[in-house]
């Protein structure tokens, strides 16, 4: 099927315009400005989708398995999906003010990451492909839930501050109620923890399956250490939530903000560092991103999981 040629700049620019319009709506609202804003958001989303499909066709791999660049764009795509859905469903809410900067940052970071994917002889890896997909999908969902939690945490704290400061509802900056945001925060922590755990577990399974070809486990890899640390923090937060000690919404909001923010900064930051400097400086090295040209092996590299797939490595 012939697909339109779409560049990252197409949807990046659309999201940027939508964000500017969303900011403009803080000072005055009209149905026309909303229509234009939603139009740009949806246009960006469509272009974003086409870009991922194109990439998938080029690499003959699902976007989640193609490269760190694609993986990051899938994460942004999931956030845009939430943004578009919420904006269409609740026209008063100013979700874009919070969500679009994160989306723009993710897309911006994706442009800095390695876009090249290895030529993988998928046939040789077919046995592992389902597990790899599960592994990466879990991580992306975990990261998406983390990003949503980060945003709801920010919204809670702003809403709480305005209510405690006895400020009336601002026309342009309508947010969900504190009760709803507190609920979202709790769910975000639980889902992030759940998906990251599944990501870890599937990484271990991948390692077991591919143990004959496994490269040595690199426990000193910064991604492994950082990710493991984040996971432990979230586990602690999860236990704290379940134990019922965190009854105050504001505490949960701070917890979500810190936990999910830390997750985003750590994982994205480490991917950015290892996915660019490392891979370019030492082509052919056995580093995770070079071996695979793929970020989803974030946790899999702990077990040397995904690296077992490729018999050859073009990037090297």
């Amino acid at each position, binding site marked *: 099927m012939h697909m339109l040629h779409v560049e990252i700049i197409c949807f990046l620019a659309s999201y940027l315009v939508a964000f500017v319009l969303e900011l403009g709506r803080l000072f*005055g*609202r*009209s*149905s026309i400005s909303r229509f234009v804003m939603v139009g740009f958001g949806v246009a960006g989303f469509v272009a974003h989708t086409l870009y991922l499909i194109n990439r998938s066709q080029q690499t003959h791999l699902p976007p989640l398995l193609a490269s760190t660049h694609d993986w990051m764009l899938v994460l942004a795509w999931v956030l845009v999906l939430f943004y578009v859905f919420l904006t269409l469903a609740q026209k008063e809410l100013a979700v874009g003010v919070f969500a679009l900067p994160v989306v723009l940052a993710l897309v911006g970071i994706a442009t800095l990451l390695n876009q090249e994917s290895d030529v993988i002889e998928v046939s040789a890896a077919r046995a592992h492909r389902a597990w790899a997909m599960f592994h990466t999908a879990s991580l992306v969902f975990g990261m998406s839930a983390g990003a949503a939690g980060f945003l709801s945490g920010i919204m809670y704290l702003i*809403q*709480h501050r*305005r*209510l*405690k400061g*006895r*400020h*009336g*509802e601002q*026309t342009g900056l309508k*947010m*969900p*109620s*504190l*009760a*709803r945001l507190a*609920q979202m925060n709790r769910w975000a922590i639980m889902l992030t923890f759940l998906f990251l755990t599944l990501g870890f577990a599937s990484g271990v399974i991948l390692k077991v399956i591919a143990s004959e070809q496994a490269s040595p486990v690199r426990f000193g890899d910064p991604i492994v250490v950082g990710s493991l640390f984040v996971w432990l923090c979230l586990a602690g937060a999860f236990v704290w939530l379940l134990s019922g000690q965190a*009854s*105050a*919404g*504001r*505490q949960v909001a701070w917890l979500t903000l810190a936990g999910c923010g830390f997750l985003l900064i750590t994982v994205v930051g480490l991917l950015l560092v290892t996915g660019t400097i490392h891979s370019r400086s030492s082509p052919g090295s056995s580093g995770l991103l070079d071996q695979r040209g793929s970020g989803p092996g974030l946790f899999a590299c702990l077990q040397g999981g995904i690296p077992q797939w490729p018999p050859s490595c073009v990037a090297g």
Partner: protein
Amino acid sequence: MNLQVVYCNHHTANLGIRERLAFSRAQIPQAYSALRAAFPRAEWVVLSTCNRIEVYTAQDDSAHVPSHQDVARFFADFHQVPLAEFFDDLVERTGPDVVRHLFQVASSLDSMVLGEPQIVAQVKEAYALAQDHAAAGPLTNALFQRALKVAKRVRSETTLAEGRVSIASVAVGDFGKRIFDRFDDKTVLVIGAGEMAAETLRYLREAGANEVLVTNRTLARAEQTAAECGGRVCPFEQLDDWLCQADVIVTTTGATPPLVNRDRFRKVRQRSGRKPVFILDLGVPRDFEPSVSDLDDDVYLYCIDDLEAVCEQNRQARSGEVEKALEIIEEETEKFRSELYHRATGPIIKRLRDHHHGIVGDELTRLFARLPHLERDRAEIERSFEQLVNKLLHPPLEALRDEARDGTPHGLMNALKRLFRLHDE
């Protein structure tokens, strides 16, 4: 084309007069019957709300048009109120002023609370009733349909209707609904009584609150309030228990010293746990010590000054939009007026064109019958004749359009009828 409105509203007449002149829904059919009997050629719409009583009249021609006095007399006869008691309170507007006035009314620019949403529904209902009783006609249909569209435009293009402006609506809408997602699972405690508490309860009920506890030092007053708001009376002596139980507290006693001090509420919070609690202290002086708010992050305490400050901000924000709304109304009034006048000249323009084209048709038939060799150039000849007619008609039609900008050009229309012998159909 004659448009007129005779009205009294909250600017011109006091409540006593308005109450006596108002039409209940049951009286409306009778009112239309009386109006139609007196002026059978006129169209009518009666708009009667607690703040205004307005009678709109429209008629195509100017023969036997109801006057200001006629409508005033109708008010007096219908309600059996001496004319002298209210005649000075009545205002009359005619022509474009009627259009402007109705557009302002429907857009809530003329309302007691600027931007209030009920008036559009009231205008819509008045118009629907007039239609049901065959009192509305082509002119009032056009006028009221356009008024509803203008109201919608004002609402969408300005923020006139945004921001609440009453204490109770701000309390529930601006604060309560930003704390809680729903109220049907919340317990509301009312301490004391009063009009503001009753209004706040009404908003809370609308938001879904079911469980209402009422307590008061005087049991009889508590019982009365509970009966009015459908709540349950609780003994005042066990106030701390009810404070523990409540998610929303509305208090209006104005007791001195404050009814609930910081220490007392700290103990309550220790018992109730850290669930969010929304306190509306409507008492003057305050019933809750202000420092109660700092006890923990989930205590949201608002006093009447906090609410009034938000109301004032919202009022100012709305006032800033009035100019913008008036511009829209002026533009729409001009457009409606122009359309209305052009509509009046439409039939005469059509007759004039038909008349001339009829003559051209006859002449061409005669010409081609006499000179058949012209048949091969028939299309060109017909086009030339058409252009000739159009050029001849252009100056009078242009003059008619120019005149129609300032009102129905009755004089010019009559002159054209006489000059070109156009007879009424």
